[in-house]
């Protein structure tokens, strides 16, 4: 099986790997919408959607748990979006209107390629699992993910009506404002990773490598402990970049009806939301890689030590096989992503939306100076630590 896979031309291999990742991301992104509904329900003291159950599945014992979790509502929603009538309003620019949801999907799925999502060991060396282990790593994520904004602007403009237009304008202003502090906030991490004299790299896997120290102490601490301000600014900017509450200016149902997606319905509308959740997943993944130690289970306990420990505990060499190590690391990494996603939802149902001027004020007058000060402080600190 493995030989067959590695015998294929590299283009086909890449295609298969890409399909596999999309097949994982797409259902998770869709499941996020149900998780969102359930989390909101629990926070509001309701049970949430828990009724749908196809009668031909009712005989399966234990399926009631899935029913209570609303899994079949998710299936029903998905089917509904596919079979609903596709409205195409008269007054829109048809080509760009149709293009916008597609443009939303492309960057959301493209950024996944450079995000490492696990690792395996070869002779003690950690090899990251990723579709494209490029050196520009984080730069590629920032460059491509900021393209996602074009879909919002395009949707807002092509809808040719006032609320979507306002939504699109807000989206562009907001993303530009927070992109700056986001980029500045991760610079200290990469300054630390790329010590003077060593070969420079912006690869995300490299950042995880730096958080893989063993034992207790600052050397093995995750960056969220050594650079809390960076982590905080990155997290806030991430909320703004993914248009999540309290920063969902482009959408803001209560003042802009639906913002950029007011004129959209059915499948096109759902594409925007799958893209939004895919963006959240990638954002959470980057946050986990940069600040939460990636696929390392605990600070001071890297993946390699965990696998060694398992080998000693069970006496089996199986744990060091690439497949087992890969699956364990992916599971740890996914758990971190899901925890981060939960925080996204938790915040959404806690904090009310900021006013538009407040969003601008936070971005330009608070976060940007803070991230510059943070960068300067860490630059000086890192200079003294590493020289």
């Amino acid at each position: 099986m493995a030989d067959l896979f590695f015998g294929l031309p590299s283009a086909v291999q890449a295609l298969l790997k890409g399909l596999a990742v999309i097949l994982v991301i797409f259902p998770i992104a869709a499941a996020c919408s149900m998780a969102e509904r359930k989390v909101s329900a629990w926070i509001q003291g309701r049970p949430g959607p828990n009724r749908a159950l196809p009668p031909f599945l009712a005989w399966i014992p234990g399926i009631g748990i899935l029913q209570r979790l609303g899994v079949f509502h998710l299936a029903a929603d998905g089917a509904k979006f596919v079979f609903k009538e596709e409205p195409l309003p008269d007054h829109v620019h048809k080509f760009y209107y149709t293009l916008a949801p597609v443009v939303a999907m492309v960057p959301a799925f493209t950024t996944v390629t450079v995000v490492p999502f696990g690792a395996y060991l070869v002779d003690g060396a950690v090899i990251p699992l990723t579709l494209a282990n490029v050196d520009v790593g984080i730069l590629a994520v920032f460059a491509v993910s900021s393209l996602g904004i074009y879909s919002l602007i395009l949707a807002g403009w092509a809808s040719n009506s006032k609320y979507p237009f306002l939504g699109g304008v807000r989206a562009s202003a907001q993303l530009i404002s927070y992109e700056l502090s986001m980029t500045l906030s991760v610079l200290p991490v990469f300054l630390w990773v790329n010590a003077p004299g060593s070969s420079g790299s912006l690869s995300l896997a490299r950042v995880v490598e730096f958080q893989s120290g063993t034992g207790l102490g600052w050397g093995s601490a995750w960056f969220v402990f050594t650079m809390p301000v960076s982590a905080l600014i990155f997290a806030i900017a991430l909320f703004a970049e993914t248009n999540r509450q309290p920063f969902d200016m482009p959408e803001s149902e209560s003042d802009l009806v639906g913002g950029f997606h007011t004129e959209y319905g059915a499948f096109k509308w759902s594409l925007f939301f799958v893209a939004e959740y895919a963006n959240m997943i990638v954002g959470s993944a980057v946050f986990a890689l940069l600040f939460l130690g990636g696929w390392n289970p605990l600070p001071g306990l890297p993946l390699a030590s965990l696998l060694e420990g398992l080998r000693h505990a069970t006496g089996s060499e199986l744990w060091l096989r690439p497949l087992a190590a890969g699956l364990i690391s992916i599971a740890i990494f996914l758990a971190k992503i899901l925890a981060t996603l939960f925080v996204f939802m938790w915040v959404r149902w806690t904090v009310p939306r900021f006013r538009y001027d407040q969003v601008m004020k936070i971005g330009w007058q608070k976060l940007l100076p803070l991230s510059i000060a943070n960068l300067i402080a860490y630059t000086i600190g890192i200079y003294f630590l590493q020289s």
Partner: protein
Amino acid sequence: MAVIQVQRKSLTLAERVYLPQIFGGMMTTLKHLLRPAETMEYPEQRPAIPPGYRGVPTLVKDPNGREKCVSCQLCEFVCPPKAIRITPGSIPAGAPNEQVEKAPQAFDIDMLRCIYCGLCEEVCPEEAIFLQNQYSMSGYSRAEMVNHKDRLYELGGTLPDKHFKWDVKKSAEESGNDRH
């Protein structure tokens, strides 16, 4: 009255930074998230109906199984939305309740009109109509939403009676003590 000067407090640092407030809020929502749901899962779980609840109006019988309504039509005339329609009828001579003289031939309450005000219950001199516990009425057609006499008695059942006034009247008549 002395004028009390109230100091307007400016925001504290924690309030201005706002993040501690957000974390405080998140703790509150987390508490609610872990708490059991406040809602009831309706068709399976039903709320307890408090006494005196004004549900669907019904007709009741007395413990002897006699229909109490004498079709005086007071409820029909008092009904603000005109939901009640009674066709009066008489009790034939020789029947066990002959002395009551009248009973409704038909008694319809249109539940699409009823506003559950309870005036019919209040006005009834015979204590024959009661708003009881049933709170959900549904049907597929307008005709289905009209409660006829048999349905009204089925919903109403039997309620205890304090007076048995028609029995008292009959025994008074029989003992020659008729005051009327």
